[in-house]
């Protein structure tokens, strides 16, 4: 998306309810800044994120997708984030093969106490995706109104 002649990426962030969503809340409570490009979608656990959701986001024109979950071993449901890690490793390498650069996808562990880490991660991620420019590979023009 172009805003005032400057490219602004569209970032979809899936955050697990127990750690990362709370971490994002904490970033807000501490009034930390990160770009408004990031739109957070709440899921119960990072393992709820179906690879389909990630593909759908890219299809609909997202420029980057990031998944945030509890640190390994801290998942509220004990093992969910291990599934996430494996599933996304596979998915991301497939996406890479299809031409969606590695920098556009990311899994990050953010605890409920790591508001600062959440903001930092989002800033870095936005910057990296902004550098790459628009996602043209997977965007499905039929979805554009």
């Amino acid at each position, binding site marked *: 998306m172009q805003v005032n002649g400057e490219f602004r990426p569209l970032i979809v962030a899936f955050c697990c309810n127990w750690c990362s969503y709370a971490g994002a809340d904490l970033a807000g409570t501490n009034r930390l800044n990160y770009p408004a490009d990031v739109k957070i979608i709440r899921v119960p656990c990072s393992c709820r994120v179906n690879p389909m959701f990630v593909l759908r*986001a890219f299809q609909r024109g997202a420029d980057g997708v990031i998944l945030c979950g509890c640190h390994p071993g801290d998942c509220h449901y004990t093992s969910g984030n291990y599934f996430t890690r494996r599933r996304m490793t596979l998915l991301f390498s497939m996406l890479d093969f299809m031409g969606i650069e590695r920098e556009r996808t990311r899994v990050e562990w953010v605890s409920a106490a790591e508001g600062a880490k959440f903001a930092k991660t989002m800033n870095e991620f936005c910057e990296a995706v902004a550098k790459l420019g628009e996602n043209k590979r997977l965007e499905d023009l039929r979805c554009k109104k």
Partner: protein
Amino acid sequence: MHRIGVFVCHCGTNIAATVDVKAVAEAVREETGVVFSADYQYMCSEAGQTLVQDTIREQRLTGVVVCSCSPRMHEATFRKAAAKAGLNSYMVEIANIREQCSWIHKDMVSGTEKAIILARAAIAKVMLNTPLTPGKTPVTKRALVIGGGIAGIQTALDIAEAGFDVDIVEKQPTIGGKMTQIDKTFPTLDCASCILTPKMVDCAQNEKIHIYSYSEVESVTGFVGNFTAKIKRKARFVDEKKCTGCGECVEKCPMKKVPNEFNLGLDNRKAIYIPFAQAVPKVATIDANYCLMKKNGKCGLCSKVCGAGAINYDQQDEIIEEKYGAIVAATGYNPIKIDKFDEFAYSQSPDVITSLELERLMNAAGPSNGTLVRPSYLSKQDDHEAHPKTIVFVQCVGSRSTECRKGSKEYCSKICCMYTAKHAMLIREKYPDTDVYVFYIDVRTPGKLFDEFYRRAVEQYGVHYIKGMVGKVSPRADGKLDVQGSDLISNEQLHVTADLVVLATAIEPDKTARSIGTMLTASMDTNDFFTEAHPKLRPVESPTAGVFLSGVCQGPKDIPETVTQASACAAKVVGLLVKDELTGNPCVAHSDELMCNGCSACEKVCPYGAITYSDKEFRQPDRTVAIRRVASVNPAVCQGCGACTVACPSGAMDLNGFSNSQIMAEVDAVCR
């Protein structure tokens, strides 16, 4: 037809300062399905909630979106408000435009724009919401404690104290566990039996507590609040109700050569036995492997002398079934087997012993009546060689080991440093002419009065602590032991001629822990310790609802820590049992039977064992009936993580409240 109402909160200036709330309310009115939108100063206030409720009634809303602070703050508030106005509480969604929007962004334009997008996503989601009702299940007000050691005893006593029935299942003939074998406890040096046996008696006398000794849990089915357990009462060939524990039978039994497991095989017991004087229940047990009557049908002496007529050679194992609301795992530990550690010559010399064996040797009720003798001289205690003059303690045998030798453990067994200091101190106190060496890697003594205790051993009692490991113990022809070790501080090789070598063996979860864990679908770590629901915040619960953890089965612990955890565990159990019924979380997974192909993918990823399979009949298009294996989710057990929904290859699994279509709709709305 959807009739959605959107309520945008100013939150004073918290939101209104960076988000043009009026513009948001304006913009969402254009969305399909939205019939009403408004903004208000404080939506969570009494007046704000009334606004929501009135609108629900007046506008006959089918869904509500509140654009406000984080759902972690006020989702519950608005759900309750909606329910009061007659709308199902799960038809409410929150768009987080404070923590994740207005507080983050400085500039009004981008803030407002983002708030509109977040509101749209919530609207898209709420259109796909379905009314949900939390299920209710009744709670059986009875607890099962598996394991009758100090952990199980304390948990049972505390639960009984709160007025609930508790059953203790113990596989040994008596409760008491490892603590009964221990002589003194650190750091107070009081006698273990003196503090434990009164608790055992309390258990026996408490009307609320039922002890199934010499019994094992065979199977567990059900879920939180509603478990059914099958308990096998092993035949002890003695009628528990009739036996008075007089010990006449034990006296007369001719079969004397049975290794006494209570004294770790250091002496012998009879084929009919009572493990120790204070056993609870104090009932004799016949060891069928040695009993002459059981083996070749000749003898029957015990039955002749038993005045109570309690002996019954034909007794059979008995299975009983009982219902429970909560189950506590208190399965405890064992020292590891160290026959694989050849360098310490444990199998070659009787004078190389484990610390637990030393406990028995120092105990007044032990094989040597409390005199410290070398095990090789147990039968000739008067010999002047019997008393060991030089004793070497070896720390960390099998603990903290990075080599993958069979039986060795990566973790620290936690209790060894302290009990070795205790042993060394007690020996120096009673036999000041004895030289005591302790080889250690590190001395770890965190705990109240622990370090003081260890320093006393070194400073006051002159125990020689040597930082380094023992490389080899070689038995000599004259019965002494050559100990070769290294002193890492002076960087020297050391040779000590010892009379007794004591190995501080690692401890490991009891062998039965794994099978019990599987039975309870409680998760365990690679060392077979039970995993807690949360390592910091829920340390006494298993992730499996209704299963609680007490004592060493969760990780190495000393007695005070075990008792603390046992009581904490009881508090959690009581918290569950006081409830008459449990309200479930309706946001759980469910499977579409028509789509399910019974592949088991979901079952494998479920951390709670909530998914089961059954054969069901389905009508085929050609009117024949086919039987297919399909998955079903137990909503009382499912915690709603959604792992199964992603694992399911056919898309049969979905999660209430976070369904595939709901999340997809959110993605679409965000990317529009």
